[in-house]
């Protein structure tokens, strides 16, 4: 069963056609990218997959399950996690809490358990705490557990956001412009990190990115969209020299 099956996805916002008959097929464990000029509709596609918008037309199936009508938290529970273009960490909560709260869909205890502090609550909380610390340890961020996001460097905050997404144990990780705003040294770090995550965790990574160094060095397969529709698809080699893609980004040479 395919991990992600998007079929003829169309999204209209009033009179604006943001996504135009898009289809995507991911088996699982791919490392691929969604690129296109500004305003092409890339984040809209991610928002649709996350369940934040309901598609006007077409379908999205995650692990065979049609997500139409599902709320975002339900889609997440199917194994989809994402990061955001502008970092959306919870700034008044510690890094550890940021990661723990993402476990909400599998807390394993009810309100009454938390009020009564039952055995189940204590065990589950300990387990969640342990899992979160292990993840931080694994990513080399153990000492940041009790830090607050605003005190961290931008690149570190990005890393925390990725860690938070990973804590959901996703099968599909959506990264929305992970390299945005990072200085080139951090970008090199990021490329290594994504590569490592892809190797260590059993998941597919689909990223939106503008920085071609990241895309070209990491991704096996790239989909290019413009005005909400696919204009090209293929390996980095195919895309690099594709005239349609070049024209979309740079405009017609006659202008």
């Amino acid at each position, binding site marked *: 069963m395919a991990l992600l099956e998007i079929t003829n996805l169309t999204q209209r916002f009033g009179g604006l056609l943001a996504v135009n008959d898009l289809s995507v097929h991911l088996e699982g464990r791919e490392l691929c990218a969604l690129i296109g000029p500004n305003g092409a509709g890339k984040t809209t596609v991610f928002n649709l997959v*996350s*369940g*934040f918008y309901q598609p006007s037309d077409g379908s999205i199936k995650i692990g065979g399950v049609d997500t139409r009508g599902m*709320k*975002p*938290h339900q889609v*997440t*529970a199917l194994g989809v*996690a*994402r990061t*955001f273009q502008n970092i*959306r*960490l*919870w*700034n*008044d*909560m510690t890094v550890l*809490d940021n990661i*723990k*709260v*993402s*476990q*909400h*869909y599998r*807390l394993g*205890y009810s*309100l009454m358990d*938390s*009020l009564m*502090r039952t055995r189940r*609550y204590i065990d589950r*909380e300990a387990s*969640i705490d342990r899992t979160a610390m292990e993840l931080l340890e694994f990513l080399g961020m153990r000492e940041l557990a009790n830090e607050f996001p605003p005190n961290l460097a931008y690149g570190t905050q990005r890393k925390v956001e990725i860690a*938070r*997404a990973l804590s*959901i144990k996703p099968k599909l990780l959506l990264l929305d412009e992970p390299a945005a705003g990072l200085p080139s040294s951090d970008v090199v770090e990021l490329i290594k990190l994504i590569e490592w995550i892809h190797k260590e965790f059993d998941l597919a990574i689909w990223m939106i990115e503008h920085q071609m160094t990241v895309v070209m060095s990491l991704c096996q397969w790239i989909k290019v969209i413009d005005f909400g529709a696919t204009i090209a698809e293929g390996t980095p080699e195919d895309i690099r020299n594709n005239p349609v893609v070049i024209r979309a980004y740079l405009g017609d040479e006659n202008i």
Partner: protein
Amino acid sequence: MSPRLTTPAALCALLLGLMALTQSGILGQYEQTILSTMGIYMILAASLNLVNGYMGEFSCGHAGFMAVGAYTSSVVGVYLFVPDPFFGQPLLPMDLAYLAFPVILAAGFAAAALVGLLVAIPSFKTRGDYLAVITLAAGYIVKSALENIDVVGGPRGFMGMKKVVIGMEEMISIPWMLIWIFIGVVFTVWILRRFVYSTYGKGVMAIHQDEVAAEIMSVNTNKMKLVAFMLSSGLAGLAGGLYAYLIGFVNPASFTILRSTECLVMVYLGGMGSLTGSILAAAIFTLLLEFLKPLEQLKWVAIPMLLIVLMQFRPEGLMGNRELSDIFPKLKRFYRFK
């Protein structure tokens, strides 16, 4: 002493101490009333803080939930123990009053929580300031509804609950209401603390800080809002029930926007998101009300002005979003705030 035992032991000691003071006459009726009122305000402030502080919403109708709890508890009490023209003869003998009292209060809690549910549902689709509108309207609706229910006296009010308290006092002459209110405050703080410090409860803060991220990171935001709202309004109902039995009389005019404003003042004075802050602010506010009594109506110019000045110079209130154990870390040895 291990941390698990210190707090309950200290609370029991406090309660016994209070009782000793009242029985010996050191704390007279007047002082007892002040302490009782303080307790009720503590419950109101702490419960509103869950929605307005931790969840960052702006609910202006706390008095409405208090009213629901007050009336429900009163009716149940009278139905069970007091002969009444409408509710008929008492079902149970007055000796059982002290056993049934928690049930009476629980009824108020449940009714208020239910109304909270009704109020919370329309607020899902709306954002920000609209909750203010909805809670405002809800407050008016509750008051207006109560004024129209003649069975509970309409605008004239309802009494009879006092007989239950007198009945309990005839059994043993201890300050029953003070005790019940003390238990109520402890219960409130206990519940809220446990809720807010669990990962489950932290979902509420996540919603406050970034609702979109919370929803996408698997927090069921609608359900969390409902739970928080019901908990908050239920506790307001508890406060209402205690208030009704303390005063012995309820009428719709006790639960107006002014009462809701008092709750707002306490929450922001104490600090949004600080349980300790709400408790402290409630205590200070009660004393302030007493202290300013000679000013009469000017009291209600002074108190809002206090809050206005607070907003200008220290909007985070007394405690900001910190708890007592953040300011005095050594206290962590004696109790765990987790």
